[in-house]
C-alpha cells in the first residue's frame, strides 16, 4: 500500500470529522438562534430547582465558562480544539456527569452489537445469496430469495418489535430489554458475559434478519454474472470439484464488490441500530441519544453525533485499508 494512499485516506477521515464537528457547532446556532443553556436553566428555575434571581448570574458564569461571550469565530476555534481533544463538556441534564464519560460507557455496547450483528448478517447473507444461484445447491435457497427480499425492506427496529413480541413475550425465551438484568454487577466474568449475550440476542436478531436479505440480494446479483464467466466453464471442463469451483472461483470473485459495499453500509447500519437500541432499551449510544433528546440535553446530543461519526469513519477507513489484502489486483500503487 502506498504512503500517498494512506495519507489521502486519513485526510478524508479528518475532513469528515471536521465537517461533523462544524455541523454540530453551526446547526443549533443557525436553526433558531436559541440559547440552550439559558433555556435549560430557565426550565430548572420554572420547576423550582433554582431561584429566579440566581439564573442570570448562572447564565453569565456558564457563558464565560463555555466562552459564549466571545465572538463567533473564537467560539468556533475553541469548539474545534475541544472536539479534537475529545473534551465534550458536561451534560446539561445530568450535571456534573461528563459527556465523554457517558459516551465511553455506552460505546462498547454499541460497537459490540454493531460488529457482531454485521459480521453474522454479512456472512450468512453472502453465503445464502451465492447458494441461491449455484445450480447444485438445494432448491430451498432459490425459494428463500423472495422472503429474504421482503425482510430486507423492513427497518430492523420494526422487526425488533415483532421479535420482542414473539420470542420475548409469547415464548418467553429471551429478556425483553436492557443489556443485563438489574442487580448484576458488570464485570469480566463468564456469568456476566453469558447474560450480556442472552440480552443481546434479540436486538442482534432484529438487525441480522434485515441484513441477511440485503447481502443475499447483492451477492445473488453478482453471482449471476460470475457463474456465466468463461473461467467457470473452464474449471468445470477441467473436472475440478464442485466445492472448489464454488468457493475458489465463483464466490471469491463475486465477493469483492460485496466487501466494498460493506464499508459503505456501516454508516447505514448504525443509523438503523440507533433506533433498535431504543426499542430494546439497550445501554448503547442510541439509547443515550434518545434520553438526551427527551431531556433537551444538547451537549450529550452533540457529543454522541460527533463520536458516532468519528467511530464509523474510523471503521470505514480501516476497511478501506484491507481491500488490497483481499483483492491482489488492487495495490493502491497506480493511483499516484
Amino acid at each position, binding site marked *: 500500500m502506498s504512503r500517498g494512499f494512506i495519507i489521502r485516506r486519513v485526510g*478524508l477521515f479528518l*475532513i*469528515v470529522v471536521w*465537517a*461533523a464537528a462544524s*455541523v*454540530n457547532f453551526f*446547526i*443549533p446556532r443557525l*436553526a*433558531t438562534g*436559541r440559547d440552550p443553556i439559558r433555556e435549560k436553566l430557565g426550565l430548572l428555575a420554572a420547576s423550582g430547582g433554582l431561584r429566579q434571581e440566581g439564573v442570570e448570574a448562572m447564565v453569565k458564569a456558564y457563558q464565560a465558562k463555555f466562552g459564549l461571550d466571545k465572538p463567533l469565530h473564537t467560539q468556533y476555534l475553541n469548539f474545534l480544539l475541544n472536539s479534537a481533544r475529545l473534551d465534550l463538556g458536561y451534560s446539561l441534564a445530568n450535571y456534573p456527569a461528563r459527556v465523554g464519560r457517558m459516551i465511553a460507557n455506552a460505546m462498547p455496547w454499541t460497537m459490540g452489537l454493531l460488529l457482531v450483528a454485521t459480521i453474522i448478517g454479512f456472512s450468512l447473507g453472502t453465503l445464502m445469496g451465492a447458494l*441461491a*444461484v449455484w445450480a447444485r445447491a438445494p432448491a430451498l435457497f*432459490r425459494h428463500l430469495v423472495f422472503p429474504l*427480499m*421482503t425482510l*430486507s*425492506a*423492513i*427497518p430492523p*427496529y*420494526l422487526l425488533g*418489535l*415483532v421479535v*420482542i*413480541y414473539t420470542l420475548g*413475550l409469547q415464548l418467553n425465551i429471551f429478556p*425483553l430489554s436492557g443489556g443485563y438484568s438489574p442487580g448484576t454487577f458488570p464485570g469480566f466474568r463468564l456469568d456476566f458475559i453469558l447474560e450480556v449475550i442472552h440480552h443481546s440476542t434479540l436486538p442482534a436478531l432484529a438487525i441480522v434478519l434485515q441484513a441477511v436479505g440485503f447481502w443475499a440480494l447483492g451477492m*445473488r*446479483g453478482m453471482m*449471476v*454474472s460470475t457463474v456465466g464467466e468463461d473461467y467457470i466453464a473452464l474449471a468445470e471442463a477441467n473436472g475440478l470439484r464442485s466445492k472448489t469451483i464454488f468457493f475458489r472461483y465463483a464466490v471469491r470473485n463475486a465477493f469483492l464488490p460485496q466487501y466494498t459495499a460493506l*464499508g*459503505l453500509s*456501516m*454508516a*447505514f447500519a*448504525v*443509523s*438503523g441500530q*440507533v*433506533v433498535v437500541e*431504543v*426499542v430494546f432499551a439497550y445501554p448503547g449510544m442510541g439509547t443515550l*441519544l*434518545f434520553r438526551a*433528546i*427527551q431531556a*433537551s440535553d*444538547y451537549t450529550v*446530543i*452533540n457529543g*454522541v*453525533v460527533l463520536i*458516532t*461519526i468519528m467511530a*464509523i*469513519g474510523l471503521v*470505514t477507513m480501516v476497511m478501506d485499508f484491507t481491500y488490497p489484502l483481499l483483492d491482489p489486483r488492487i495495490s493502491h500503487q497506480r493511483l499516484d
Partner: protein
Amino acid sequence: MDKLSSVFTYLKDSPMLTAGLGLMAAILLFCVAGPLFVDTDAAQPLSVTPRLSPSAEYPFGTDDAGRNLLAVMVLGVPLTLRIGLLAGSVGLGVGILLGFGSGYIGGKVDTLIRGTVDTLLTVPSLVVLISIASTIREEISVEIMALVVASLAWMWPTRTIRAQVLSLRERAYVQMAKLNGMSSLEIIWKELFPNLLPYLAANFAGAVSGAVLATIGLEALGLGPQNEPTVGMTIYWAISFSALIRGMWWWWAIPIAFLAMLFVSLILIAAGLDELANPKQRMAV
C-alpha cells in the same frame, strides 16, 4: 392503445414490478377510499373509547389516548407517503442535477462532487438528521420534515446517476450527436435523459423508500411532527406507552404492517424497473 399494450407486455415480463405496483395501488386505494368510510376526526385523542382491541366497529382497535386507529391510518399513511414523495423528489432532483453535471462535465467539477458524495455517504445520516431535528423540534411540520430528510437524500441518486451518465457518454449515438453539432444541454436533454428514464424511475422509488425510512426513524424517536397522526408517530406513542408489554398488539402491529407493505412495494418497484433498464441484470434463475 399501442403504448398501453406495451406497458402490459413490460408488466408481464417483470413479475416484481407488477407485484410492487399492485401493492402500491392497494395502499393508495386505502388512502383515497378510507375517508369515505371512516370519520377522520376520530384520529384525534379523546374521540373514542380508549384501549379497545380490534372489533367490527373499530377494525384496527383504539389506542390509550382514545384515537380510532383506523382513522389514524387513513390520515397517517398519506402523510407519511407525502413526506416520502416530497423528500424523494427533492433528493432525486438534486441527484439529477449533480449526477448529470458530474458525469457529463467531468474534470474538477466531477472530482469535487464525487468527493463530497463519497465523504457524506460514510456519515450515518440518521444521526445528523437527529441533530437537526432535535434543535427545531417544536417547529417541525410535515413539509419541514420532508426538507430535513431531503437534505441527506441526494447522495445515492447522484452517485448512481453519475455512473450511468459516464457509461452512456461514450456510446456511439452520443458521439454522433456531438458530431452533428448538438450542444451539451441538448445532448443531455434529448439523448441521455430519455435513455435514463427507467433508471431515474428506479432511483426515485429508492429515494422515496430511503426518505420514508429516515422519516420513520426520526418519528420513532419522537422527532416527528408532534400533532400529526403520522404512521411513525403512532409507533412512537405505542413504544412510549409500553403497548408491547401491555398486550395491545394492534397499536404497533398495524402501523408496522402498513410500513412493511409500503417498503416491500417500493423495493419491488425499484428492482423491477432496474431489470427493465438493465436486461443483463435480469435473473433467469
